[in-house]
């Protein structure tokens, strides 16, 4: 068996075998095959090779098993794979997730004010001065969980030398305007927030405890 010198025609034989040639090209190959014994013989070799390869035992597979094993794309939501609701914590997460955003905003505001007050107190304890407070009020936590707001000192009092006036906490006007029922409701919600830090404030070496300084004790 010799090779046909028409390389272009020989290159088309595998596609001819698979029936993937455009119709016009297939007609050309048909005509060539009628006249060229070498290409006809080569096509028969390819057919035979394909028949032999068709006899190979193909491994069995189960499409459903393969699909079940596929890694799911990130961020995709499928009917059988919906993400669990977002949980804030392992316990009580569902309860917290149902809270209204207003409560979270209130908690954030209280935290912000508290941190501001603590920052001022820390600064003052380090400086050891009686510099006037630059904030109108700070929030403290007193035993029993009742939240109150210390009034502005107006620069006349220092946590380092508390006076009776400083020890007497008075309600912030916006809180004082609440009636008993509203106050109870507010306190109940604040208690439910569990926003009180779990850790005790650390003592500063050579200084006083932050909370103690802040409370003037």
């Amino acid at each position, binding site marked *: *068996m010799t*090779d046909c010198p028409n390389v272009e025609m020989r290159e088309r034989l*595998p*596609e001819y*075998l*698979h029936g*993937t040639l455009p119709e016009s090209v297939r007609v050309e190959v048909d005509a060539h095959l009628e006249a060229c014994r070498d290409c006809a013989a*080569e096509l028969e*070799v*390819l057919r*035979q*090779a*394909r*028949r*032999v*390869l*068709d*006899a*190979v*035992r*193909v*491994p*069995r*597979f189960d*499409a*459903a*098993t*393969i*699909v079940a*094993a*596929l*890694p799911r*794309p990130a961020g*995709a*939501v*499928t*009917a*059988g794979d919906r993400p669990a609701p977002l949980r804030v914590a392992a316990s009580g997460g569902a309860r917290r997730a149902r809270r209204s955003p207003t409560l979270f905003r209130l908690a954030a505001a209280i935290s912000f004010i508290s941190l501001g007050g603590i920052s001022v107190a820390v600064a003052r304890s380090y400086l050891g001065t009686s510099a006037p407070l630059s904030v109108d009020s700070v929030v403290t936590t007193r035993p029993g969980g009742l939240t109150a707001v210390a009034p502005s000192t107006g620069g006349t009092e220092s946590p380092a030398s508390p006076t009776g006036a400083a020890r007497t906490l008075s309600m912030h006007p916006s809180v004082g305007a609440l009636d008993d029922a509203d106050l109870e409701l507010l306190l109940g919600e604040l208690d439910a927030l569990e926003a009180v830090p779990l850790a005790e404030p650390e003592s500063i070496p050579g200084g006083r405890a932050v909370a103690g300084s802040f409370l003037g004790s």
Partner: protein
Amino acid sequence: MGSDSSPGVEAPDEELIARWRAGDERAATLLVERHAPPVARYVASLGAREAGEEVVQDTFVRAFGSLEQFRGDSSLRTWLFTIARRLVLDRRRSRRRQRDAVELQDGDLSTEYDALDGLVADEAARTMQAAMAHLTPTQRDVFILRVNDGMSYKEIADVVGTTEGAARVHYHNALRQVKERLHD
């Protein structure tokens, strides 16, 4: 296999991939049903009779695990064949290492190709089987992809990891050797 009248069965691979990324489980099923048979045939033709089913599944798991890297420069079928071939070669190397054999090289495996053993009855087919078994692994791979799967040289080059020109040379060398053996 799904029915031909199922929705999306005629959708192109790219569309089904996009639907799968969006969470459409059915799109993955269509892709697997479309491509698993040729992948399984190819795996078998490489001589991976042992754990062939596992290789087919691993091929899809790996492909879908790195779909982000699939740019569509080649067809999904070509990409799957590339992964399947790599898996078969990895397993073969691993098996050879376990047998304290030498590194896998062209020629070493010419007598190891047993995908067709005992499967062909007539003399002509047995002769063809012997002729293909004497090809180097790369020649045989290229020959199979061209004759059995109808791939273009470009696709073969992607699967085998060579150039289009080299794939063409491998094919014609393989064809010449097969013809010579058939007429010895």
